[in-house]
């Protein structure tokens, strides 16, 4: 009887999880999704706790208390740090899956080797491989995003890197297969698989640069989900399989969107070591860059009827989103239509810019996707590029030798006037020259994004021209 009640709770939980994701299709209903998710989680936890074999209440209470104590502050991080928090939680997800797989394996080796059927062993091996590589890989990604000093920010590459990584993974998989065939006799291989998987996670992330983080985070999201699926197979639990599959497919779709937005393949992102190869030849010819003062730029913006702002990771780094909101208000007050052009890979994770601008209380209908805003670009009087670089580089359209050739971009060069806020003329993270900065109608606003936007706001507020 109790078993059926538990299964019923799991069933309702699965349905609620699906609804939680379904409601995310619109910001108006999205918060309902969180409620559904919490309800599903409560059902699942209570359903598990009422099972008769649960006796170690002290341990459970302790672990839950510490988890809550760590989890609550983790949800208070500033929104610019959300990518690192997300990576960290993928790491926790992977760790949990790996540990449960490990515990189950040793339990069965000691107390019931007949449970270690080839199918179960396949699931356990998949669970620990995915779980532990997600754990270290996500920790590395979080470290890179947090810019920890002892983790190299730039992609680290060395000779035979891909070959040695793949060999490592191959050895881990072979050990795994051996374990599937003879789980009890070869149990000593189990720690070997764990160790190799932990190492592979680190080595996988080392060659990856900041611009590829959106894809990698999505991919790790998918792995974390798949490790939960594997755990579901090990524990014979359909709720785990369902929830894990939802997470896995979500990560998969996000990674596909990110890859498409960069015109690259998974293999290229993971093994391509972006941002190393090109010591650009284009830099040879010395080209002219024009700069403009904040006052001058403010005057031109004031006269415009449509201003499109293109935010990038630089806006997040400079924490400029609240100044951008002030700029938005100043211009809107003067009857200027201000829109924000969001490139899918702007920032360090999918949707990063949307969240930052929403935090600054910019209404979300002003945030426009790349494909939609590009139609309006020729009508835009002013484009203001804030801390974005590759996503507005016209070289992606026509320069076959450019490493970003073929990547869909926001057509900032098609607007009548373009202002680009940048610290200096140093090429960005990927080291690619941006020809937008040399175009006839482009004017640079040199300085920190927050400071420059602040000056724009000040000149607009000071001029008072055209205020109704």
């Amino acid at each position, binding site marked *: 009887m109790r078993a059926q009640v538990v299964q019923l709770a799991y069933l309702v939980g699965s349905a609620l999880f699906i609804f939680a994701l379904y409601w995310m299709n619109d910001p108006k209903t999205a918060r309902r999704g969180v409620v559904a998710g919490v309800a599903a989680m409560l059902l*699942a936890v209570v359903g598990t706790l009422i099972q008769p074999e649960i006796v170690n209440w002290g341990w459970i209470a302790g672990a839950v208390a510490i988890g809550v104590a760590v989890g609550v502050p983790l949800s208070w991080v500033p929104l610019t740090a959300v990518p690192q928090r997300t990576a960290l939680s993928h790491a926790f997800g992977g760790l949990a899956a790996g540990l449960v797989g490990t*515990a189950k394996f040793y339990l069965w080796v000691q107390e019931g080797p007949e449970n270690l059927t080839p199918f179960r062993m396949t699931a356990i091996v998949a669970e620990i491989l995915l779980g532990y590589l997600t754990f270290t890989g996500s920790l590395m990604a979080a470290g890179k995003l947090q810019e920890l000093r002892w983790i190299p920010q730039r992609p680290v590459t060395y000779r035979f890197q891909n070959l040695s990584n793949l060999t490592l993974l191959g050895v881990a998989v072979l050990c795994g297969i051996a374990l599937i065939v003879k789980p009890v006799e070869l149990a000593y291989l189990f720690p070997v698989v764990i160790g190799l998987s932990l190492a592979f996670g680190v080595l996988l992330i080392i060659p990856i640069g900041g611009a590829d983080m959106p894809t990698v985070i999505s991919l790790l999201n998918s792995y974390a989900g798949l490790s939960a699926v594997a755990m579901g197979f090990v524990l014979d639990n359909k709720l785990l399989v369902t929830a894990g599959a939802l997470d896995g497919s979500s990560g998969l779709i996000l990674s596909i969107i990110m890859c498409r937005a960069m015109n690259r393949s998974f293999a290229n992102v993971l093994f391509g070591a972006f941002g190393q190869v090109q010591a650009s030849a284009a830099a040879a010819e010395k080209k002219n860059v024009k700069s403009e003062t904040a006052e001058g730029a403010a005057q031109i913006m004031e006269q415009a009827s449509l201003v499109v702002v293109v935010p990038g990771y630089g806006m997040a780094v400079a924490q400029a989103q609240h100044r951008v909101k002030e700029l938005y208000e100043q211009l809107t007050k003067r009857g200027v239509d201000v829109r924000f052009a969001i490139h899918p890979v702007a920032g360090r994770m999918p949707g990063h810019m949307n969240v930052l601008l929403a935090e600054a209380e910019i209404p979300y209908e002003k945030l426009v996707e790349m494909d939609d805003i590009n139609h309006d670009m020729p009508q835009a009087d002013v484009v203001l590029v804030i801390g974005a670089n590759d996503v507005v580089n016209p070289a992606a359209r026509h320069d076959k030798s450019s490493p970003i050739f073929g990547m869909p971009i926001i057509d900032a060069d098609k607007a009548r006037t373009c202002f680009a806020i940048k610290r200096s003329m140093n090429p960005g993270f990927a080291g690619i020259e941006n020809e937008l900065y040399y175009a006839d109608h482009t004017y640079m606003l040199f300085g920190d994004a927050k400071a420059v936007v602040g000056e724009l706001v000040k000149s607009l507020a000071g001029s008072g021209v055209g205020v109704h």
Partner: protein
Amino acid sequence: MRSGKRVAAALSGAFLGVLPALAAEPAAKEGATAASFDLTTMLFVFMLATFIGLGVITRVSRLLHTPLMSLTNAISAIAVVGAIVITGAKHPPIITILGAVALFASMTNIVSGFLITDRMLKMFKTQERRKP
């Protein structure tokens, strides 16, 4: 189209419901037949859930991809179920400790995942609602 998705979700929910009833009590020791039967049901669940996931996620607003990721984080922390079983049952201490660490990790994800998702979603406002 939207209602179709809703129906699909409901239907698959019903489908998932039949499965556990069918596979309710096959004890582990019943041997090969029970095990292989269970295997196919589990694979069915996996396949259907993946397709539902793909269908539902492609419809998620691009505005919300960051909250989506933190929400799926929290959802996949359903691993808490496995961690509770390992921690709670009578096992050697080392196993209990492994389970407790897993439980801690999952619990952290659940709490921070849901809280930060809600915090972010609260920020998405339209123009009308902002004006007093």
